[in-house]
């Protein structure tokens, strides 16, 4: 089990509030992933990544995330199942400038994909399965695919269970495996798109009671651009 959250602001007036809106979202996912947590914040100067072991509350406090501004954020709370609990094994995985991936689930053929990536000169820095997916998407984008196409390639190349949230400097995209085993809910208003593993991570967002709430269907990429 792990927790995923993401917030993509459409209304620029909310940008000074990004951190304040985002911290309760990631804290709400503590029970899904108490081992480590990480986040990527996007503002006009680029993508800023924080990853550490411990509880989201402590990590957010240590880095004063609540006071941060920006236009987009993704976060992850990890309950480690297949590799060590270290800051390096925490999500998001950020294999290229502006690219961040958070994953709930497990890939069963990550060793094979890792080997194929190595033939292309792409090496992973950890033995984590999710890093392989991040580097795979990074390679597809580097070859010219847009984010949505790169994520569809994940369906072809990877076996396993996944809900993925992947962001670039301009895009915010969600994909679930063909059985949609891992939970996901998306809320959209005129002000933002928010995604989380469970609804209660979204419950404190402004205007949530009037948001359009969607559970992503299996094998369909949901993407937003700015």
């Amino acid at each position: 089990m792990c927790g995923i959250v993401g917030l993509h602001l459409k209304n620029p007036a909310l940008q000074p509030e990004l951190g304040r809106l985002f911290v309760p979202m990631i804290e709400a996912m503590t029970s899904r992933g108490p081992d480590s947590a990480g986040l990527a914040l996007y503002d006009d100067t680029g993508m800023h990544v924080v990853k550490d072991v411990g509880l989201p509350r402590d990590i957010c406090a240590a880095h004063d995330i609540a006071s941060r501004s920006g236009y987009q954020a993704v976060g992850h709370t990890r309950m480690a199942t297949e590799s060590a609990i270290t800051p390096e094994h925490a999500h998001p995985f950020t294999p290229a400038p502006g690219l961040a991936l958070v994953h709930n689930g497990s890939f069963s053929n990550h060793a094979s994909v890792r080997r194929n990536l190595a033939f292309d000169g792409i090496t992973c820095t950890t033995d984590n399965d999710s890093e392989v997916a991040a580097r795979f998407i990074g390679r597809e984008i580097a070859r010219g695919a847009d984010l949505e196409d790169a994520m569809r390639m994940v369906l072809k190349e990877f076996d396993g269970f996944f809900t993925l949230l992947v962001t670039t400097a301009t895009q915010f995209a969600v994909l679930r495996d063909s059985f949609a085993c891992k939970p996901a809910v998306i809320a959209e208003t005129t002000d933002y798109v928010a995604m989380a593993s469970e609804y209660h991570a979204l419950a404190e967002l402004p205007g949530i009671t009037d948001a359009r709430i969607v559970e992503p269907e299996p094998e369909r990429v949901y993407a937003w651009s700015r």
Partner: protein
Amino acid sequence: MVALNAGITQELKIDLATSSIRELNAELHAPTARRYEVHNPRGAEAIAVGLRDEIDVEIHGPAGYYCAGMNMHADIVVHGNVGTGVAENMMSGSVRVRGDASQSAGATAHGGLLVIEGSASMRCGISMKGVDIVVGGNVGPMSAFMAQAGRLVVCGDAGEGLGDSIYEARLYVRGSVASLGSDCVEKQMRDEHVAELTELLAAAGMDHDVSQFRRFGSARRLYHFAAHNSAAY
């Protein structure tokens, strides 16, 4: 907790902004009132689970995972959406969701009535064992997977793989079916099916022309042992 009607305690109002889920469920497991209002659920998990008494519980707002799970006898209404596994393993009583439901609504439930006025997501009625489920909108892919007994009524459309590996549950769908799962087939609507569908729609408070529904059930090719396959076992 605030007694709305102090002294008689026929009604209790519980605010989850100030009370915990454990406090709420402890009260509901040994009820001191006949009727409860729950406020500020904010998508919390395991609201009103394991109830065993004939009480009314109204939840005002969205509920999270496993709301009203294992219900016996109680009548529970959620004025909002619900998360995964609403009314899972319900035995009796009723659960009504005025919004939409997430995955696995009514999973493994043995009895009672689950009404979802909006739509239900994937795996609605998975392994249902006798519950009646009426969905006002659509159901997602893989609904009624391995459904063993009970009735599922879908007033909208059904997603891919409806009724895969179904046993003896009966499925009624008013709209389109994206595809049928293994061993699930369309069956004739006989008089007794029209009668039970009419009854279920009335119980759910839904007004539709029963002639618009189609019935689906098991072809019974999958779960019967076939002697000519004995070498394969």
